[in-house]
């Protein structure tokens, strides 16, 4: 195994699980493996251009673009969020685990605009740092912070309408 092979293997072992999870949330587990594969095909072709130390943000950025591209091509739109909208308690979670509250939250997320959902889930359903999330989303740190703040406010309003009142703290 030469150096490029080893680097690809290391990147795959380090990031494939997180990427699979990130993608599966958004496009469904059925296609998640394909998107992770496409992401690593791009990585393999451009291995010498992936900045050392910034691999995670680079890979998530590619995976996000691949996912959005597939979502756009779907005639039925964003299937995952349709599924979230229609989700019921039979989806496998335990009632005692607050499943109804979770479903309400998913539905509130599903009703947000795609840009709000994108920034919230990229921030809160991954372990990316704010700087990495800004790079993944292709915006500056100030723009990222403002967009995230507004998305939080809109989600908080949507939850209040469902009688779920989150605390909206002053945001960093």
């Amino acid at each position, binding site marked *: 195994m030469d150096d490029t092979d080893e680097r690809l293997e290391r990147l795959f072992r380090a990031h494939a699980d997180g990427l699979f999870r990130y993608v599966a949330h958004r496009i469904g587990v059925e296609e998640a493996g394909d998107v992770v594969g496409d992401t690593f095909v791009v990585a393999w072709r451009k291995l010498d251009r992936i900045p050392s130390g910034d691999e995670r943000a680079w890979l998530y950025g590619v995976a996000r673009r691949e996912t959005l591209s597939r979502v756009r091509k779907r005639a039925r739109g964003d299937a995952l969020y349709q599924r979230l909208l229609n989700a019921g308690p039979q989806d496998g979670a335990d009632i005692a685990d607050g499943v109804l509250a979770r479903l309400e939250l998913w539905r509130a997320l599903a009703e947000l605009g795609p840009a709000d959902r994108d920034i919230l889930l990229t921030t*809160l359903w991954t372990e990316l740092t704010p700087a990495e999330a800004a790079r993944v989303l292709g915006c500056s740190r100030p723009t990222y912070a403002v967009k995230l703040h507004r998305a939080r406010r809109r989600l908080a309003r949507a939850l209040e309408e469902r009688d779920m009142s*989150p605390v909206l703290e002053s945001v960093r």
Partner: protein
Amino acid sequence: MNVDEMVRRAAPARVDGWAESAQGRTVLAGVRMRSVPRKSRTVRRIVGAVAVTGALVGASAAAWGVFGEEPPKGWHNPTGGVACADKLGQPRGLYILQPSDANAIDQCRDWWRTERRTEPPEPLFGCVIVMDDNDGGALIVVPGAPFKNAADACREAGMYAAPPEAIANPGR
């Protein structure tokens, strides 16, 4: 519970071990079969570098010519809020204040004193970022040193200079 905690708690379960699973190993094998890492050719790299440099110089010149001036007509600050940046450029922290009609720079001076417990790093200047997705713009107060005026400081930060009326009454 705040919005972030609610969204994090609603995240689907972690996926661990996918990279090492049969599906993960098949995906990685497929990546290796579908492509080989592109070996850089000196000529291609030089031509590419010249083209990219030219494009970046052109784009930077265009951006440099725009940033620092007042934002495009029709920009608006939909929330009426003000954000205080902890430094010029790519701030580590951007603190978004509750909407208020008070002068934006005075709001951030108060924030430095009450929240950061230090005198504000004068001069402070008001800058504007304009979102690319019809989400309006945002007013951001930045520490301006070493620059002497808002135009230069905001240009350095990749933002527009805030119009005086927006600074005087951001909530309008």
